[in-house]
C-alpha cells in the first residue's frame, strides 16, 4: 500500500497528491458517517437491538448467495448511476432515467418470450434489450429536444413523462401484450429467454459484466473523447462552451439520449437477468437511485461500481434485516436520502482536515 502511494506521489505534484488523498480520506469518512447514521436509525427509529445491527451489517457477507444478491442489486444502480453521472456532468437534471429503465425493461420482457426459443443464441435476449434501449432513447428525445430548442426545464418535463410512460406501459400490459393466462403481468420468461447466468445457483446473470462495462466505457467516454470533453465544458460553464464554439444545444440532446439509452439498457438487462416477468405496477424508483450513486461517485462513471456495491450492500443488509427481525427495509430510503445530503454537502467537502490527520492517514 505504502509503495503504491509512493509511486503515485512521484507521478503528480505534492499538492495534487495531497488533495487526491484528502478526497479519498473524506470519502471514507462520509461512508463511515453514512453507515453510522444507518445504524443509529435502526437502533433509535427502528427500535432494533444490536443483533439487528449485526444482521444488517454482516448478513450480506454471510454466504455466496447473499453476496451474489449484492452483485445483482448493484446492476441497475450501476446503469442508472452512469446515466445520471453523464447527464449531470452536462448540467442536465433529467429524471427520465426512471422512465427509461421502466420502458426498457417492459420492451425486453415483451419481446424476449416471442423471439427466443429453446436453444436460441444468447444474442436474442441481447437484441431484445437493445430494442428496449431504442425505445428509451426515442422517448428520451422528447425532454432533451424540448430543453435544447425551447428551454423547457428538463426536470419537470422528464418527471411528468415518467408518469405518462408508467400509465402507457400499464395500458399495454393490461390490454395488449400481457400474459393471456395471468392478469397484469407479461409472459413468464423461460431460461432460454433470459440472459445467461454466471452462476446458476445464485441466479447471478452476466448483467453484472455489462454494468461494469458500462461504467468503464462511460468513464472513457467522459474523459477521453471529444464528446465527453464537450459535455464537461458545457456542464461546467455553458457560456464558455458556446463562446469557444461548442454546440451546446446538441450536447444537451446527446447527453440526455445517452442517459436514456443507458437506463433503458439497464432496465432490459435487469429484467432479462433477474426477473421472470414484467410485473411492476408502479415506478420502481431506480431513477432516483441513480442520483444517489452519481452523487457518491461525484459524477465519475469510474467510481460508479464502487458506489453501487456499497449501496447494494446496504440494501441487501436491510432486506435480510427485515426478514429476520421486525425492522422494515423502508429504512433504506431514509438512509439513502441522508447519503445524498452528506455526499452533496459542500460544507463537509470544504472542511479542512488538519495537517496531522492527513499525515496520519498516509
Amino acid at each position, binding site marked *: 500500500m505504502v509503495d503504491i502511494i509512493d509511486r503515485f506521489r512521484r507521478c503528480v505534484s505534492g499538492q495534487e497528491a495531497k488533495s487526491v488523498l484528502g478526497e479519498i480520506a473524506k470519502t471514507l469518512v462520509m461512508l463511515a458517517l453514512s453507515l453510522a447514521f444507518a445504524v443509529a436509525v435502526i437502533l433509535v427509529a427502528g427500535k432494533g437491538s444490536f443483533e439487528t445491527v449485526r444482521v444488517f451489517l454482516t448478513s450480506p457477507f454471510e454466504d455466496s448467495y447473499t453476496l451474489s444478491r449484492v452483485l445483482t442489486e448493484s446492476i441497475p444502480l450501476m446503469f442508472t448511476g452512469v446515466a445520471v453521472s453523464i447527464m449531470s456532468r452536462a448540467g442536465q437534471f433529467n429524471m427520465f432515467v426512471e422512465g427509461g429503465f421502466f420502458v426498457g425493461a417492459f420492451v425486453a420482457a415483451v419481446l424476449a418470450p416471442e423471439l427466443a426459443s429453446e436453444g436460441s443464441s444468447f444474442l436474442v435476449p441481447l437484441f431484445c434489450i437493445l430494442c428496449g434501449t431504442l425505445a428509451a432513447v426515442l422517448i428520451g428525445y422528447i425532454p432533451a429536444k424540448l430543453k435544447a430548442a425551447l428551454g423547457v426545464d428538463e426536470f419537470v418535463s422528464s418527471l411528468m413523462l415518467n408518469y405518462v410512460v408508467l400509465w402507457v406501459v400499464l395500458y399495454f400490459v393490461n390490454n395488449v401484450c400481457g400474459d393471456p393466462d395471468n392478469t397484469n403481468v407479461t409472459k413468464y420468461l423461460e431460461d432460454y429467454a433470459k440472459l445467461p447466468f454466471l452462476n446458476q445457483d445464485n441466479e447471478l446473470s452476466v448483467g453484472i459484466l455489462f454494468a461494469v462495462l458500462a461504467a468503464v466505457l462511460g468513464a472513457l467516454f467522459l474523459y*477521453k473523447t*471529444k464528446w465527453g470533453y464537450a459535455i464537461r465544458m458545457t456542464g461546467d460553464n455553458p457560456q464558455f462552451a458556446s463562446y469557444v464554439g461548442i454546440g451546446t444545444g446538441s450536447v444537451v440532446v446527446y447527453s440526455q439520449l445517452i442517459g436514456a439509452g443507458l437506463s433503458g439498457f439497464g432496465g432490459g438487462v435487469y429484467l432479462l437477468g433477474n426477473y421472470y416477468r414484467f410485473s411492476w405496477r408502479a415506478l420502481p424508483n431506480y431513477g432516483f437511485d441513480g442520483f444517489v450513486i452519481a452523487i457518491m461517485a461525484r459524477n465519475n462513471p469510474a467510481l460508479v461500481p464502487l458506489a453501487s456495491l456499497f449501496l447494494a450492500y446496504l440494501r441487501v443488509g436491510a432486506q435480510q434485516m427485515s426478514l429476520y427481525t421486525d425492522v422494515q427495509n423502508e429504512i433504506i430510503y431514509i438512509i439513502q436520502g441522508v447519503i445524498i445530503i452528506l455526499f452533496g454537502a459542500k460544507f463537509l467537502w470544504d472542511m479542512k482536515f488538519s495537517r496531522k490527520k492527513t499525515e496520519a492517514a498516509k
Partner: protein
Amino acid sequence: MSGYIEMRGITKVYPSGVVANKNVNLSIEKGEIHAIAGENGAGKSTIMKVLYGAEKADGEIFLDGRKVSINSPRAAGALGIGMVYQHFMLVGQFTAWENIFFGIEEKNALGVLKKKEMIRRAEELCEKYDMHVDLTARAADVSASTAQKIEILTVLARGAQLLILDEPTAVLTPQETEQLFGQLRLLKKSGYTIIIITHKLKEIMALCDRVTIMRQGENVGVYNISDVSEAEISRLMVGRDVQMKVDKEKAQPGEALLTVTDLTVRGKGGRNAVSGVSFSAHRGEILCIAGVEGNGQREVVRSVCGLNRKYTGEIRFGGVNVAGMKIRKIRKLGLSHIPEDRMTTGCNTAASICDNLIALDYAENSRLGFLKTKKLRERSCGQIADYGIKGTLNQKIGMLSGGNMQKVVVARELDSDPALIVADQPTRGVDIGAIETIHKRIVAMRDAGKAVILVSADLAEVFSLADRIIVFHDGEITADITDVSSVDEVQLGRYMLGLERMEVQHG
C-alpha cells in the same frame, strides 16, 4: 494626531494566499474628501471593504479615537459608514424608492410597509442633495449615473456620515463626472466625509483635499493635494515613472478583412443599442474601438463574434456573410475572441488549465472521437512555458490569479492561428507584468499581418496600441481617427461624449 477614522496595522491575506493589504495605516479627517489612489490590485478596494466591514482583516480601527470592531456592513452602517460599490448594489426589480429604503423600511408594528411615507422622505432627500431621480422607475431600467445617484441616496438615507465611493467615475461621462463632483462638494459642505477610490489622477487633483497612495498592498504615502503633483502621485503609484509606451513600428495596413455595414442591434427597452454602424478592420492594423462603456461596443463585439445573431445589417468576414452562422464556423474562418469577462465567458474556472487551453481545436485533435491526449498535453505544456503562466497542466484554472488566467485565455486565442483577433478589455484587472506580455503579443499579431480589433475603456491603452481609432457614442460612431497622433485625450473625450462628430468615411 488622531483623525476621524484611524486604521492601524491592517493586514489582509485572501485564502488563495494573495496578500491584499500589508500592515496598512490610514487616517481620515472629518469633513475632507480623501482619495485612495493606486493601480489595479494595489489593495485600495480591499482596505475600504475592511473599513466597511465587507472583508475581515487583522488590525485595529478607531472612530473618533474609540476602538471599534466592524464585522459587517450592517455594523459599519450603524457607525455612520456607507459605501457605494463599483458594481451597483441595487435590486434591479425594485423601484428607486424601494431600493433607497431597502432594509430600513418604514413599517407599522405588524410589519406592513408605509409606502407613501417612504416616497415622501425619498423626495425630500433628492431635493436636499440636488439629486433628481425618478423614484418610481425600476433600478434595472435607469442609466448608470442615475443608478449611482440612487446608491448615494441609499447610503444617505441610512444616516451615513462617511461615504466611500469605489471608482465612481468609471461609468460616467465627463459631464456626469462634473455633476457628481458638484454634488460631492455639496455633501462635504454639509459636513460629510468622503473617501473616493480611484486611479484617475486628474480627478484626484480636481476634487480631493488629501490623497493616500497605495502600491502592492502597502500605504506608500499621504499628501495634501496642494503639496503634490500629478507626476509624483503616478510615480508613487507605479513605483517607477509611468511608461505605457509599447514598442511598435508604424502599421502597414493591408486589405479589409472584416467589413461591418449598417449594423443595428436592438437593446433593452426597445432602444437601439447600436444604430447603423459601418466600419472595417484591416490586416496589419490595430483598430481600436473607444468609448465610455455601454455605448454599443459590447453589442458590436457580440454580433461580430457570433454570440448575438439578432441584428440587421451585414457583417462580412473575409468576404463571407456570417449572418446566422454558428460560432464554430465563424471561428473556422479565422476569428479569435478575447472576451471582456474571463471569469464567466473566457474560461471554464472549474476545469484544468489544459482543458481550457484545448477548447478551440480539441475536436480536430481527435481520432475516432478519442482525444489525442498526449499531443494536446504537450502543446499545452509549451504554451504554459511560452506565456509564463504560473500553474501546472492539471491545476484548476480558477485557482490562478487574474493575470495568469487571462494569459491562458490569450494563449488559447492567439495560438489558434487566427486572421482576426477581437480583444475586448484584454488587460482589465491584470497585473503589470501580464499587461506587458499581452500588449506585446497583440502587436506581434498585427505585425504578422493579422487584423486586430481592440475594445478598451482605458485611454492609456488606446493611445499606446491603436493604429486607428473609432469612437462609439450612444450606438453610433462619432469619429474615425486614422492618424492617432493627431488627437489628444481631451479631443477623444469630446467624441466619446458625442459633443463633437467627425465626418466618418466608410472604408
